[in-house]
């Protein structure tokens, strides 16, 4: 089994509300796994637990990096990012008053190490690293199709481009696993198609795994290798896209009892 991420028995409580209940999920290397489920199912909460924003009440999250397997549950967010999990947010959270390239360069932070002295004296190593940061960032910006906006402030970008920039910024951290929280929300059909292409391209080019929360079923069916379905904090189904679309439990969760054939 070459699982990149194994989640076992994950539990997350908000006061009396159990948002995640005994959740198991495995992400394989190089796959695109879509996570679907009705609003309030706990998908975003799951992402927040994975990235260290929330500390789960119980359960184990295990990440397999080239350096070996390790448990990452409860680690602070910046450590988890450095270990190889990057994400985007359901409500876009860019750095609005920084330029597009600066946003992406900020993503390079955890892969570089110029300190205060390096910043002031600009020694050979610092300049070399800064140059590398600029070039790598620009490369990613071009991939994301944002080259014409390099020096534009992030807040001035059209909505669709802001979504792409968030993905670009996450990519700059060189993740093993990329978490996308409803990347197509608010996009029109043309933009969604472009996003579809971008996501597959990212997977093929960087050879990373992608865990994707999405409501757009056309997008889910076309790009995902597997689909997992959540409802009320539990995983209710998992399988290939065509299996899921015929699964009666899933249809019940989404559409109600009466639609089950």
């Amino acid at each position: 089994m070459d699982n990149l991420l194994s989640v076992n028995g994950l539990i997350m409580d908000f006061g009396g509300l159990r948002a995640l209940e005994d959740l198991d999920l495995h992400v394989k290397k190089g796959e695109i796994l879509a996570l679907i489920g009705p609003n309030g199912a706990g998908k975003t909460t799951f992402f927040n637990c994975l990235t260290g924003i929330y500390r789960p009440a119980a359960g184990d999250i295990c990440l397999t990096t080239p350096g070996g397997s390790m448990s990452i549950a409860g680690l602070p967010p910046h450590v988890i990012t450095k270990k190889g999990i990057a994400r985007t947010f359901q409500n876009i959270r860019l750095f609005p008053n920084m330029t597009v390239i600066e946003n992406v360069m900020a993503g390079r932070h955890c892969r570089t190490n110029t300190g205060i002295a390096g910043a002031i004296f600009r020694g050979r190593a610092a300049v070399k690293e800064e140059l590398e940061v600029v070039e790598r960032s620009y490369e990613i910006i071009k991939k994301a199709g944002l080259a014409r906006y390099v020096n534009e402030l992030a807040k001035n970008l059209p909505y669709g481009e802001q979504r792409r920039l968030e993905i670009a910024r996450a990519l700059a951290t060189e993740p093993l696993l990329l978490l996308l929280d409803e990347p197509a929300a608010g996009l029109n059909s043309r933009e969604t198609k472009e996003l579809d292409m971008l996501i597959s391209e990212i997977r093929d080019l960087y050879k990373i795994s992608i865990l994707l929360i999405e409501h757009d079923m056309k997008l889910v069916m076309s790009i995902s290798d597997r689909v997992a379905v959540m409802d009320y904090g539990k995983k209710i189904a998992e399988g290939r896209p065509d299996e899921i679309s015929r699964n009666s439990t899933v249809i019940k969760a989404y559409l109600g009892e009466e639609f089950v054939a």
Partner: protein
Amino acid sequence: MINFSDIKKSLLISVWFMFLTFPIMVIRVNPIDKIVEWRWLNMILVGAASFIASFAWKHYFDKKEKGKSVKTFLKSGHTVFINNIADKKRFRLSFAFILFASAIIFPFIFSAYQVNIITTALVYVVLGLGLNIVVGIAGLLDLGYVAFYAVGAYSYGLLNHHFGLGFWAVLPAGALIAALFGILLGFPVLRLRGDYLAIVTLGFGEIIRITLENWNEFSSGPSGIANIQRPSLFGLELSLQSAAVYIYFLMIALTLFTVFVVKRLQNSRIGRAWLALREDETACEAMGINKTKTKLSAFALGATWAGMMGVMFAAKTTFINPASFTFHESAMILSIVVLGGMGSVSGVTAAAFVLILLPEYLRAFSDFRMLFFGAILVIMMIFRPQGLVSGARRAYRFNKADDKI
């Protein structure tokens, strides 16, 4: 290009001003004849003046913003190249040269009094640039910045008094001690933001001042420390007059040094982390930036400059006591940052001069000077809430040929 909406905006502003200044400019109570005079002419003048001023102001800045572009320091062969608009650079160079030359000859033309005022203004430039790191760049609202200024001043005062250490030895030491205090303040406020952070830092400033005021054995309380040594020039003791000039030049050098360092920090990996922290804390962490380290480094590097200026202040006045380090000072420095434009080096520099020199040169108006001062601040905030210079971001240029990979 004059368009209608600009005129309308300026008109509104002038009406607003006529309204604001109505009580002081139009109505005058004559207590001798017991009548009220209505000076309508004044109102028309105020209206016309503010209309013209707002109109001119808007055009000036519109033009400036259009021509904005910043260059990179990177000189790589293919992807990055420096964007130099030749005549713009020449203009900048000549401007810097004129500024520098007049700074050099200034003390030989003007009196020691004038030199002292400029020196004070320069101290506030550095203080403003220091606080700008914390508030403007990292977005941590610090209302107790004066504490670090006090720490620097007392470092020099005490080390000089007890151990006879000279200015040059204590200058870096004072900066370092202040930086440590910055970290000391940073730890308890790591989890706070916004208003809560402001309140705690305000308290921190007061704690330092009150401690200095009451701990007689340590700091000799409200009577302060007197007879602190002026900076010496290669061991020479200078006369009062030439000491003022010497300190002036020291301040010029220190200001240039500060600008240099702050600019470099701003456009570095650390600077971007600070900005990211200001923009969105959660996203900042999710991008792999260590929030704790970033906050502490901002507090420490901001405090450093206040510590250095504290040493300078003690050396300049030769006497310090806690009364020099009240909240009023913190508020002043914060005004400099806000007026200058959060995160902008040139804006903060200009604002420091405006805010320090204005009350000095308005002395002729005696009691009214603070009123004018307040009015000017209010006017500024109406016309340009983002500050004198809104922080321009560095622009990067790339070879277009390179784009088709």
